[in-house]
């Protein structure tokens, strides 16, 4: 499934801005931005993006908790989620996958390849599903 719209969730405004520009200008994607887990839940249900790029360490509602809530809501349960984290050791990546995440993009990410990385992860997931 071609990716058109991304929900970008990060509490750091600078990271949000860089990722936003990268996804929009380099990746030619429509980007919806959320600054917290709570906002992400709201925007996701309303915008129904093709994929959620979800930061792990956020105050109040962190990445994994937000992910659980998205999964719990039938409206958002099937939307693939990719975690973005500085904790990207192999076993940590496996732990996120075990939660049901589509993949993990380690921080710091390369802004020139971010959109391509998102597409690659999703197509790999599709291939595995097929």
């Amino acid at each position: 499934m071609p990716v058109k719209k991304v929900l970008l969730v990060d509490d750091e405004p600078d990271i949000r801005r860089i990722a936003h520009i990268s996804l929009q200008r380099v990746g030619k994607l429509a980007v919806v931005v959320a600054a917290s887990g709570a906002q992400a839940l709201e925007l996701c249900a309303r915008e129904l993006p093709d994929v959620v790029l979800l930061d792990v360490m956020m105050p109040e509602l962190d990445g994994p908790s937000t992910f659980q809530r998205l999964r719990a809501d039938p409206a958002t349960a099937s939307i693939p989620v990719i975690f973005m984290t500085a904790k990207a050791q192999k076993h940590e990546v496996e732990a996120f996958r075990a939660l049901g995440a589509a993949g993990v993009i380690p921080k710091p990410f390369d802004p020139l390849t971010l959109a391509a990385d998102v597409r690659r992860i999703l197509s790999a997931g599709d291939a595995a599903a097929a």
Partner: protein
Amino acid sequence: MMDLLRRPFDERADRPESASEQMLRLLLDGPLAIAISDVTEGRWQRVNHAFLALTGFDEAHAGGATPAEMNLWLDGAAAARLMRSVRRGTPQRDRYLGFRTRDGVECVAQVSVEPVELGGRPMAMWLLADATARSLAERALHRQNEVLSALTLAQSQWIGHAEQPQHRAPLDAVLDALVRATDSRFGVIARLDAGEEGLCLVSCALTGCARTDDDRAVLARHRRHGLELHDLDNALGRAVGGARILGVRGDGTDLSLGGWPPGAGEPATLFATPLCGPGGAVVGVLALADRAGAYPTWLLEEIGPFFTACGTLLHAQEELRRRRTAEQALRESEERFRLLVDGVEDYALIMLDPYGRVTSWNRGAESITGYGAEEVTGMHISGFYPPESAAEAQRELDRAQVEGRCEVEAERVRRGGARYWASVTLTALCDANGVLRGFAQLTRDVTGKRQLDRMKDEFVSIVSHELRTPLTAIRGALGLLSGGVGGDLDPMTAELVDLARDNSERLVRLINDILDLQKIEAGKMSLRPQPIAPAALVKSTVEQLRALAAENQVELAWSVEDGAAWHADPDRVTQVLTNLISNAVAFSPPGASVTVRVSPAQAAGRSRLSVTDRGPGIPEELRRLLFGKFQQLDGSDARKKGGTGLGLAICKAIVELHGGAIGVDSDVGHGSTFWFELPLSSALCSGRADRHPADP
């Protein structure tokens, strides 16, 4: 010749003998030695056969002679005293007088002298009985008695002074008695000592040897510890060797005493004998010197039996001295240990009985727990555990008893109930027969250390997140700029943006390396070892680095000569291999090739992975620095290559965490080979050798 024996008692009166004269004649014919002299000159008037037999003289010599003319009495004055007494009419009975036979043999007679009247003249009648044998026996007995009482006294003194092993008086008294009994001037008893400088003699008793003030001063100084004689090439040394020395100066016997007594030369006569302990081993030596004449064998036979007692006494004294020295050393060692234990404030050293009850409690235990020793002695160790884990105490004691020791890090309770974290080592103390005598518990308060560890973990976690977040933004922004997302850049701006981006990437690597190293050093890097096929891992790592190699115009080639599987964490091995290949590429000149090779290691159960470059090589003296932290050999060059200075330190830590080894061989001017060895998995991969040429 005048018949001295038969002639009448009164030659002037030719008359028949009186009854008393007849009785006297009967006596003269009897076995008792009798001689009759006048009372003025003492000239012999009558002597009988028995007298002649006793003295060895014949009638011709004895008749009419005075004892002085015969040179009879050894002590003429004593004989004269007897005569004077008889002259006054007082008989003398059972006196002992030494006399000399005609042959010159000195003998002893038991003498009685009676005043008699013969032919109307006063006379002295001498009755002599040979007492030589008895006298000798009595003198011998006297000498032996003297030595025996000295020995007996010495033994009782020794028992009385046994608490003072240095006390020398007992042996001094024995030596004195021996010197007196043998009419010697000088004597020494010395014990054999096996010191650090070899065998030597140490005087235990010295007598009669101080002849000058200097000698006396030396002896006084050394009286307590004894004089030492290290040169044993003399009569004393030979006596220690088991020989009995008996000699007179000038007879060819070596009589030198190695300088003993101080200041004296060789003695005129000498007797030296080894002294043996109860087991027969030589424990020392006795020497007696300067007896007038010589040391006769009979004299030595007389006192010989006492040498055994001397040896036994010397042995006992030496044994006691050794025991006391050992006890003293033990007491000092215990005292040092006690001071050490008491002085330790940071560690609680607690001794427990076999049931786990406190028997001793040092100052460290007081300062950690807040309890004084007098409060807790006899208390069970479980009293210092939190209530919910009090049962652990017995389990830990049991474990220490079974396994020898038990180490735990757990909570304990201070006086007042406050809890603290304790690092505890409990060691079972058993005697030589393996019987449990108690436990030693060493406890350290690690509450502060645990807090520090937690703070450090938190700090690292914060650093990893907080540093990376702005770096992510910087790197992202620079990446977008250099990628032309913000529009085309003029060449100089593009160069500056690239420079900033490269350095931000280097900063990211540095943070990652520091975090990795911290994790390893804190023991928090957990390995997930599994069987790895070398070929697959090498291939994928090389493929990932082909772009980097191409950028540096370096060719990459790899071969696997040992396909046995490693038992290792694939991510970590990849990290190490990536680091080594990146280094090799960075330091290779353009056009050179880097070779990765897996081969059998010399050590069994391992295989070796090596990365060979054609770089400048590393001088031997610098090779050992390579695997330290921040050890780039040529700072400017290494910085140009973008290294962090931690890569090889991390590689070393990772390889060692696997139980492997890492190293480098280098030929300056020709290149280096970095290698590491990993343990093999029990499961073997295909032994097929794979070889892959450099990129076509």
